[in-house]
């Protein structure tokens, strides 16, 4: 049992000390009260240390995400979202599920990730292009202002207008990017809840008196 808990403890490095101690103490007390001593019996009850740790961590991140919805800035939410996706993937990998289900999940994850990535790259490309255009117009305007004053003014004005418009819509774009990340996070979490198989203890059976 101590061996089991030690392994479990080592896998919870992402939690801070007090959180980790609390989780491990909870399960230590549980196993003592359940009078489960053998390593194998612990595994039968709670899953392998790795499975239990992944489950705890995935749960932490997901709850964290739910709890803080609305209380956090968008960028913090995005970080929490990305972290949730990461833990869910790890939890999935460490969970024994049937190969077809695993394949389906992997394909779904790849598709979701690809679409999200494509959207992000597309937005970044458009922004970059528009910025370059604006700067080019500014430089061009300065270049020809001595030859043709009005044409120079036109280019300078257009360049400034483009860059100004970009700054105006920047918050909107950032909001949209965060929305995409949040959306993917929620999707991945749904997938997780839909497909993760439960261990014996969670299916509700009592196997140890």
């Amino acid at each position, binding site marked *: 049992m101590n061996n089991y808990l030690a392994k479990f403890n080592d896998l919870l490095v992402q939690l801070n000390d007090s959180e980790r101690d609390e989780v491990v103490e*909870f399960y230590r*007390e549980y196993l003592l009260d359940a009078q489960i001593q053998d390593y194998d019996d612990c595994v039968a009850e709670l899953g392998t240390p790795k499975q239990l740790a992944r489950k705890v961590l995935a749960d932490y991140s997901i709850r964290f995400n739910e709890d803080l919805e609305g209380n956090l800035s968008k960028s913090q939410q995005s970080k929490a979202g990305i972290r949730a996706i990461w833990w869910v993937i790890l939890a999935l990998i460490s969970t024994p599920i049937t190969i077809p289900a695993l394949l389906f999940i992997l394909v779904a994850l790849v598709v979701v990730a690809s679409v999200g990535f494509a959207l992000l790259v597309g937005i970044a490309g458009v922004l970059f292009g528009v910025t370059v255009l604006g700067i080019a117009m500014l430089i061009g305007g300065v270049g020809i202002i001595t030859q043709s004053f009005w044409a120079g003014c036109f280019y300078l004005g257009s360049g400034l207008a483009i860059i100004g418009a970009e700054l105006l819509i920047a918050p909107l774009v950032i909001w949209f990017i965060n929305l995409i990340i949040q959306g993917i996070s929620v999707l991945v979490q749904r997938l997780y809840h839909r497909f993760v198989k439960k261990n014996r203890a*969670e299916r*509700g059976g009592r196997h140890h008196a």
Partner: protein
Amino acid sequence: MAIQISSELLDGCVLACLKTQDYYGYALTQRLQASISVSESTLYPVLRRLKKNDWVTTYDQAYQGRNRRYYQLTATGEAQLAAIQKEWATYNQAINTLLQGQGGAFA
């Protein structure tokens, strides 16, 4: 069990158990498992959430040379339990009506 319990209902069940007496983790799991399908790996996050919301408090009591952490209902927890009981009564009635094919006023 085919029907999954929602986290609000599970909160309510745990609070209701704690209203009758203080429990430690394993005893509470046993108490719940006597009636519904639930595990300690579900229960830990529930207890953590209840504690964070100040619906329960914990205290440690020595038992055979180690500590047992007991969970105790607070006043706000009791209010929360009453709220969940009320919600459930409404919901329960609505589902029963639907499941029994009654109340089709617009049919």
